[in-house]
């Protein structure tokens, strides 16, 4: 009895020691650690090279925002809120409102971010999101006009990452589009005499949504392996990242590639686009509709 319990405790001890050794090895030699996994055709979190993490979406939970969404892509958690304000339109675009997306990667979400102004990563992601939202036409800025030349809506779409486990771009785009879809604006009328805009508390109208883009990101490790949906451990080790944005009809909206898109001897861009469409068809088709 005593012997059995000591062997049980020693085996659990050695399991703990193995786990500690693996953790130390991961910290000291991350590249070799990843290479060893990839040689066995699996990734450190147990997924296949082309496997995507589960996505969960929750909208409308924040009452202070005009529209909100919470996205969980694996462990990566992003909260997005839309606040609407009123401003004068630009002089050269009197019939257009404004769409201002921003992503914040605060110190809370990962040990590699320090408190302070937005890091390079946050700035780059914000800019890319702005490009995609504008180019895909999620909300047409002319639908935000209240009175040409006098008043228009400004939609501040602010996303905050709560937990950063890689692939913030996909998660944030999902959160922003879902929050916009969830947004309702009060009915606004511009009063010519007082030159002010008055909003109604009773009547709220949903935004006119154009397209619903979804993004799929890939990374290339060492020029040899194509990994879908990289985690925060894999991301710093990747040479190339490719993002493919698909709209709600399965059509291609935009493609972004940073780095040399070559695995072995073949160019993988088309492969990525096909894989993205496949994943969209299988899992993400109804993701905005279910919310």
């Amino acid at each position, binding site marked *: 009895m005593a012997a059995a319990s000591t062997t049980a405790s020693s085996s659990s001890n050695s399991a703990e020691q193995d786990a500690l050794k693996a953790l130390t090895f991961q910290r000291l030699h991350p590249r070799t650690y990843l290479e060893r996994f990839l040689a066995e055709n699996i990734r450190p979190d147990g997924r296949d090279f082309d496997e995507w993490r589960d996505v969960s979406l929750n909208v409308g939970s924040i009452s202070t925002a005009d529209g909100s969404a919470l996205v969980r892509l694996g462990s990566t958690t992003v909260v997005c809120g839309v606040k609407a304000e*009123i401003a004068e339109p630009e002089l050269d675009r009197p019939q257009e409102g404004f769409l201002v997306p921003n992503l914040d990667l605060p110190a809370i979400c990962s040990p590699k971010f320090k408190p302070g102004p937005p890091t390079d990563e946050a700035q780059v992601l914000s800019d890319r999101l702005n490009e995609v939202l504008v180019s895909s036409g999620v909300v047409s800025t002319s639908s935000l006009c209240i009175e040409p030349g006098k008043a228009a809506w400004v939609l501040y779409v602010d996303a905050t990452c709560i937990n950063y486990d890689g692939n913030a771009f996909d998660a944030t785009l999902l959160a922003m589009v879902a929050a916009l879809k969830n947004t309702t604006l009060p009915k606004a009328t511009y009063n010519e005499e007082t030159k002010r805009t*008055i909003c109604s508390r009773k009547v709220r109208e949903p935004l006119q949504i154009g397209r619903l883009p979804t993004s799929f990101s890939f990374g290339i490790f060492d020029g040899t392996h194509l990994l879908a949906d990289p985690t925060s451990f894999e991301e710093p080790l990747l040479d190339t990242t490719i993002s493919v944005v698909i709209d709600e009809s399965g059509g291609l909206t935009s493609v972004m590639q940073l780095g040399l898109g070559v695995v072995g001897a073949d160019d993988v861009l088309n492969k990525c686009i096909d894989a993205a469409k496949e994943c969209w068809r299988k899992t993400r088709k109804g993701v905005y509709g279910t919310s």
Partner: protein
Amino acid sequence: MAQSNFDRRRINGPDESYQPIFESDDEREARWRAGEPRKGRAARDIRPIFLKAGLINQANGSAYIETEKTKIACAVYGPRQSKTTVYNEKGRLNVEVKFAPFSCTRRRVPIRDAEDRSVAVQIQQALIPAVRLELLPKSTIDIFVTIIENDGIEGCIAAGSVAASVALADAGIEMLGLVAACSAAVVGEEIWMDPTEEEGQIASGSLVLAGLPALGTVTSVWQSGSMTPDEAIKCMEACQECCADVHSVMAQSLLESAPNT
């Protein structure tokens, strides 16, 4: 409120934009009149607390608290090496609070301002007596609090302290006890516990108390507005009673998140 900040590190909107002005509120519920009882709750009831530890796996410890409309996420990183070259015999506790831009009725600019700093200082004062910093020389513990939705600033300070305390416990940092906090407001002749933003505006004074129910001590009291000394003492006593209830919720959430061995 007109906002005219150009931040070169963010996507900017127009130079000035202001919050929508609503037509005169005929539909709005009649304002509270003196002598009326509280709506929705008894005077001494606090809002139900949902508390979960360990949601942020990148951090050493984390907690998420939700009390009806107040939603706060907290992460603890540490103990990690102090960046300064000055030798510190006792560990440092650094608290940073951030309000999400969509968390308040009026959009908050992402630049940190005085309110963020004052909430952070209050949470820090509530926690410092409870953490055994003398065991952590040359180290810093960083606590980051993100307020996702804000329904009453006193409620935020109280919930933030509770979340930070649970996150510290989740990170395995040695403490003398769990810090529980509660807020109270004086409305007319009555004392209402855990005021919402609306209730905070009609109150004449408010008080936030943080303490260690396990040891029966108080770590921080913050009183604002006007109240008689008697009312202040009654508020403190009521808060201490509620802290005991909050403490059991905190202990329960930590038990649930502990891995089954």
